[in-house]
C-alpha cells in the first residue's frame, strides 16, 4: 500500500527527560570517557532575584525624588575587629579571580575599573600581582587552600584578607588550572613546573573545622597587626550554620557565594548539582547573624549571579551589606562579546555560551595566558567599561531604593519586596505577590 504523505501522523517527540542537550552529553561522555569541565556558574534555571519585585512607595510609603534627593551607597566592611575597616563608595565589589585563570591585562582592568568606581577587587588563587596591587585602591587578598604565592609581604600589602573555605560553583571542591594556561610566570608564582595541570586543594592544609579556623584567624591578625578586615567566604550549602561558625571563628565579614557564582574550571556536574541558589541563602545567613546579635556588626557579602542594580537592591533588601560580582565583571570587560563570534564558532561555541575558560583560548583575551590573545584586551578601556557598568548598577539600585523611600540603599528591607513565585517567596521569606503569606511563614501550617 502506497504511503499517503497527507495522512495524519504524530510529530517527532522529544523527551523532556532525554532532551537533545542531554543526549548530546551522553554521546560526548560515551566517546571520551571523561566528564565535562567548564568555567562559569550554574546555568540551569533556579529561583533568582528576577522572581522578586519591589513594591515601591504608594499611599502608605513616601518616595524620594529620582535624581535629586540623596540616596547614599557607601558601605564599611570589617568593623568588628579590624583596626582599619575598609570603606567602599558602592556596595558592589569584585570577586576573587586568579591571575592564571585570567590574563594579567584582565586583572589590571578589574583593578582599574573597581578603583574608578570606588570599590574593591580581590586576588584569587595564585597570589597577588604587582599590576593588580598597583591598580587596585582597595585590594582583598584571598587566603586559599593551595596557598599558591602566599607570603607575609603581600598579606601586609592587602587591605583585607578573605579566607576562602569554598565557592558557590563547587562547595566542597578544589580548583584546577590546566597546563595550557601555566605560563612561566604563572608557574613561578605557584612554585610548580610549567605546563602541568595544577590542582588547588579542596581544604586548607593546616586547619580543620571552625575551632581551628578561629586560631588561624588569630594568627593572621597577629601577623598583620590586627589591621585588616578578615572575610570568610563559603559556598552556599548550609548558610545558617556556615555563617554561625564563621562568626564564631572571628570573621569580620562573611561572604556567601551561591551556585550561580562562577569558577575558572570545574566539572559541570559539580557546578550544576552541588550547592544552593543565591536567593536561598541570604535570609538564612541574615537569620544566623540576627540570632547571634551580629547583623550589621559582621557584614554579609552575597555573590552568585548578580547582574544589575535590581539584583543588588534585592540582595541588600534581604539583609546583605554588599554584593560581589565575577561573571558580570568579566562580561563588562568583554567576555563573550559577539564581536568575536567568528572565533567562538571556531571553538565550537557561540558568543554568550562560551565557557571553556580552562582551555586558555579566550578570543576576548580575558581567560587566557596566551600573549597574543591577552593583548586584545586593553586594560584601560576594559577598566573604563567596568567602571561604567558599576556606575549603572549603582544608579539602578539607587533608583529602586528611592522608589521605596530609602535615602541609603542599605535601608532597603524585606518588607519592600514581593515574590512572584512560591519558590522565591519561600527562599526570600517575602509574601507571594497579592498575598500576605509565604511558605514557611511563622504561625502558618504550610
Amino acid at each position, binding site marked *: 500500500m502506497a504511503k499517503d504523505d497527507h495522512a495524519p501522523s504524530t510529530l517527532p517527540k522529544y523527551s523532556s527527560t532525554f532532551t537533545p542537550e542531554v543526549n548530546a552529553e551522553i554521546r560526548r561522555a560515551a566517546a571520551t570517557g571523561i566528564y565535562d569541565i567548564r568555567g562559569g556558574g550554574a546555568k540551569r534555571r533556579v529561583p533568582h532575584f528576577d522572581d522578586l519585585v519591589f513594591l515601591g512607595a504608594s499611599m502608605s510609603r513616601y518616595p524620594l525624588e529620582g535624581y535629586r534627593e540623596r540616596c547614599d551607597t557607601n558601605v564599611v566592611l570589617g568593623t568588628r575587629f579590624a583596626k582599619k575597616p575598609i570603606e567602599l563608595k558602592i556596595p558592589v565589589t569584585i570577586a576573587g579571580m586568579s591571575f592564571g585563570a585570567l590574563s594579567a591585562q584582565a586583572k589590571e582592568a578589574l583593578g582599574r575599573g573597581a578603583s574608578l568606581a570606588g570599590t574593591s577587587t580581590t586576588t584569587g588563587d595564585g597570589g597577588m600581582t604587582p599590576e593588580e596591587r598597583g591598580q587596585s585602591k582597595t585590594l582583598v587578598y584571598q587566603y586559599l587552600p593551595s*596557598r599558591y604565592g602566599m*607570603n607575609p609581604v603581600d598579606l601586609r600589602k592587602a587591605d583585607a584578607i578573605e579566607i576562602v573555605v569554598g565557592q558557590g560553583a563547587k562547595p566542597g571542591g578544589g580548583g584546577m588550572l590546566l597546563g595550557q594556561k601555566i605560563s612561566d610566570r604563572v608557574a613561578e608564582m605557584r*612554585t*610548580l613546573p610549567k605546563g*602541568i*595541570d595544577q590542582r588547588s*586543594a579542596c581544604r586548607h*592544609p593546616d586547619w580543620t573545622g571552625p575551632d581551628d579556623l578561629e586560631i588561624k584567624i588569630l*594568627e593572621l591578625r*597577629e601577623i598583620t597587626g590586627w589591621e585588616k578586615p578578615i572575610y570568610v567566604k563559603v559556598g552556599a550549602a548550609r548558610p545558617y550554620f556556615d555563617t554561625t561558625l564563621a562568626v564564631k571563628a572571628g570573621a569580620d565579614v562573611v561572604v556567601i557565594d551561591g551556585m550561580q557564582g562562577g569558577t575558572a574550571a570545574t566539572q559541570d556536574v559539580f557546578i550544576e548539582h552541588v550547592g544552593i541558589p543565591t536567593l536561598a541563602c541570604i535570609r538564612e545567613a541574615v537569620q544566623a547573624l540576627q540570632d547571634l546579635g551580629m547583623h550589621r556588626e559582621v557584614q554579609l557579602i552575597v555573590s552568585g549571579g548578580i547582574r544589575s542594580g535590581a539584583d543588588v537592591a534585592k540582595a541588600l533588601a534581604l539583609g546583605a551589606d554588599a554584593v560581589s560580582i565575577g561573571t558580570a565583571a568579566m562580561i563588562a570587560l568583554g567576555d563573550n562579546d559577539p564581536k568575536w563570534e567568528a572565533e567562538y564558532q571556531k571553538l565550537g561555541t557561540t558568543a554568550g555560551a562560551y565557557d571553556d575558560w580552562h582551555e586558555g583560548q579566550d578570543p576576548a583575551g580575558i581567560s587566557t595566558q596566551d600573549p597574543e590573545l591577552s593583548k586584545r584586551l586593553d586594560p584601560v578601556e576594559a577598566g573604563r567599561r567596568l567602571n561604567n557598568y558599576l556606575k549603572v548598577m549603582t544608579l539602578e539600585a539607587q533608583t529602586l531604593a528611592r522608589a521605596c523611600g530609602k535615602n541609603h540603599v542599605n535601608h532597603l528591607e524585606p518588607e519592600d519586596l514581593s515574590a512572584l513565585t512560591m519558590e522565591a517567596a519561600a527562599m526570600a521569606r517575602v509574601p507571594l505577590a497579592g498575598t500576605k503569606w509565604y511558605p514557611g511563614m511563622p504561625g502558618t501550617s504550610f
Partner: protein
Amino acid sequence: MQTYDLEADGLRGLNAALQSQSQTTNETAWEVINPRGSHAIAVGLDAPIEVTVKGSTGYYCGGMNAQATVNVHGSVGPGVAENMMSGTVVVEGDASQYAGATGHGGLLVIKGNASSRCGISMKGIDIVVQGNIGHMSAFMAQAGNLVVCGDAGDALGDSIYEARLFVRGSVKSLGADCTEKEMRPEHIAILADLLERAGVDAKPEEFRRYGSARTLYNFDIDNAY
C-alpha cells in the same frame, strides 16, 4: 637578652615587639617565658633575631617566619613554621600536625617526632625530623626537602610534585604518584648539608629518596578513582 613573660604581658605585645625589630636591631636575642601552649607565638617575624621559647606552644608557632631563628624548648602544636619564607625554627620536642605546611623557604628542625601531614603542600622549605613522621606527610608537596631520620607513616608523598623526600627508616606506604628514586651524588650532597645544618649525626648513605613519578602531572581519566 630581652625576656618577655607571655602570661603576664600578652601575645599582642610579644608579636608587636618582635615584628617591629629592624634589620640592624641590637635587640637580637629574645626569650619568651610562660608560653603555656599559647597559639601564634612569634609569627610574622622579619628580622635577623633569635627567639627562644621556654616551654611548649600551641598552633602556628613561628608562622610565616622570615629571617628569624625561633627555638622552642618544648613541643609545638599544629602548623609550626607554617608558610615560613626563610630563617630557622628548631623544636626540641615533638610537633603536632601540619609542621612546616606550605613553607616557601628556611629550615625547620624537629628533634622529636612529627605528626601527620608534616610538610603538607611545602613550597621550598627544608624540614628535618629526627624522629618519625605521621601519615599523609608531604601531601601535594611542591618543592623543598623533607628529611626523616626515623620512619614515615602511611601515604607518604601522596600527589607529590617536585619536593624531595629522604627517609632513613621504614615507609609504611607511599601515596599516589610517589615513588622511590635513585640517590645520586647531588642528593647525597643536599642531604649531607641539611643534616649538618640540622645538627644531626647521621650518614646520608643510610637514607632512601622518594619523589614524584610525575604520572599525575596532566589530567588523565585513567588516573581518577
